[in-house]
Structure formats: structure tokens, C-alpha cells
């Protein structure tokens, strides 16, 4: 069995551990989030939805996952 290298990122303001080499799409899947229901900001850059596969999350990255909630 491989020992997966783990990295720590900042996810929605909190420390979060995940396996190294994951794409943004894989992160969303691991969190059970539908890509169409969230918007992703990686290190302050908004990612286009159809490019989630292209971005690999690295050690120390800051990820924000936002969505629409009730508001006035």
C-alpha cells in the first residue's frame, strides 16, 4: 500500500488536510459538492468551472468555496 503524501491547505478559512496532487475537481468530489453549485477561488483567483481538472492544489494554497444563500 502506498503512503500518500498529505498536504495542508486553508479551506474556507480553516486548515484542511488532503492528499497531494488532487485537482480542484477531486477536492469538490471529496467534499460531496456539486461543481455546478459552487464557485471556487484558488489563491484569490476565480476558477472557470470547466477548468477544475486543470488546477492541482498545492501545499499552503488558499481555497474558498462559495455559493448563493438567502439574502436581501
Amino acid at each position, binding site marked *: 500500500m502506498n503512503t500518500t503524501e498529505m498536504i495542508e491547505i486553508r*479551506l*474556507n*478559512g*480553516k486548515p484542511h488536510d488532503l492528499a497531494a496532487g488532487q485537482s480542484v475537481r477531486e477536492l469538490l468530489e471529496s*467534499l*460531496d*459538492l456539486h461543481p455546478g*453549485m*459552487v*464557485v471556487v*477561488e484558488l489563491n*484569490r483567483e*476565480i*476558477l*472557470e*468551472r470547466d477548468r477544475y481538472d486543470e488546477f492541482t492544489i498545492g501545499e499552503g494554497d488558499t481555497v*474558498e*468555496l*462559495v*455559493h*448563493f*444563500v*438567502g*439574502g*436581501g
Partner: protein
Amino acid sequence: MTASQTTSEAPAVQDEALEVGGHTLTSRLIVGTGKYATNEVMVDAIRASGADMVTVAVRRVDLDRTKEEGVLHHLDPKEFFLLANTAGCYTAEDAVRYARLARAAGFNEFVKLEVIGDETTLLPDVQATVDAAKTLSDEGFKVMAYTNDDLVTALRLEDAGCVAVMPLASPIGSGLGVVNPYFIREIKRRLEVPVIVDAGVGTASDACVTMEQGVDGVLMNTAIAAADDPVRMAHAMRSAVWAGRSAYLAGRMPSREIAVPSSPTAGMLD
């Protein structure tokens, strides 16, 4: 309860549709989606209001809680036009960031720009609002800007490219109604883009008085969501907006602080 619909239907009135930034609204009432006790009541109240444009906020997904808290799990974006806001932002930079995030959700280019300048009154930071409006308009956003009831700021926002200017009736969530109807009228008289009064309406008479000033629409959230019966209040607001708009179009009689008899003074018996 299942009440008769007869009292909730607004009478037909000839009026042109409200167009904002190239989008035609069927209702002059725009409603928020916040503060409802349940999502079911929210959807029922919005349907009762007759509004087709609804505001939503951009927030972090709470990863410790149910994913169902997202409003799109309850509101069908094909049924309602989603107007994302920048509520909670205190700088132009933050507001621009939130607007960009909202646009990336992929629904439309509209944003309800809101930059707050004071935590106690939630009054807007008008300079930051104008700055953010310029930036966003240059990026192709259709900006509907929340502002105070100041004419000069309203003119600056129009110059900045806003597709609608939205002065407050009174502070957000206060329910105080229109505290300065003269300035609301003056803003409406001077601007070419639609003027939509946003915030401060407390009850149906406030919505009616707001529309009687001649503005193009009214946006509210708490007045409906915080009512004991939000669905019933939504009906009331719908009727009040219609009534106020109709009264404005009808042209009211002059008000005067003197009585004038309605019945003939001639023909009285000796």
C-alpha cells in the same frame, strides 16, 4: 390555510413593464431571500409577492453543515431572476470580489452593489460604492447600486454606469418606511436610469407610499420575511405596490390644509 384568492389579486392597471439593464421585469416588486424561518415559507412568500427578480447573497459553503443550505437547492433559477448582492462588504475591493464570484456562478451579469460604511446604521459608504460601480461597470457588470437618499451620489452612480440606482427608504431592516420622500422624488426626477427604492419598508402602507413617489420599483426583504405570516404579507406588498403605482399614474389631488365640501353648497333647504 387556504384563503380565497379574490382579496389578494391586484386590479389590472395599464402600465409599462419595468426594464432594467435590458432585462424586463414583470413585477415592480423585487424581494430578498434572507431571514425566512424555513425555505418552504421563503418560496411560498416569493411566489405570493409576484416578484420575478430575487436577491441572493454570496457566502462560504459551510463545510460542517448540510450542503442543502445553498439557496439554489430551493429556488429554481429558471423561475426567478437571481440578483446577487455584495451585502456585508465594507470596501470597494471586497464588493468587487464578491460581484466577480457571483458572476462566476454563471447566471447573469447583474449585481446588487452594496458597500456598507457604518456597522450601526448599515448606511452605505457612498464613495466606495461609486468606485466599485465604476470598476464593475467597466468589467461589463450591470450594476444596481444600493445608496442613500442623496441626489448627488445618485447622479454619480448613474455617471458610473449603473443600470439602476437604489436609494434607501430608511436603514436596512429598520422598517421605518420612507423617511425622506422629497429626496426620493428628486432622485427620480433627475435620473434617467430606473430608481428602485431599496431597504426600509416595514409594512404595506410604506410600500404604497414609496411607489406613490413615482419611483420605478421597490426592493424589500425583512418586511416580508419577518412578518408573523410572511406569505400573507407578501400578498399585501404585491397589492400595495400595485396600489401605489396606480395612484402615482392616476395623479393625486392637491393636498391643502383646508376643508372643501364634496357636496354642492347650493340647493340647501331654508
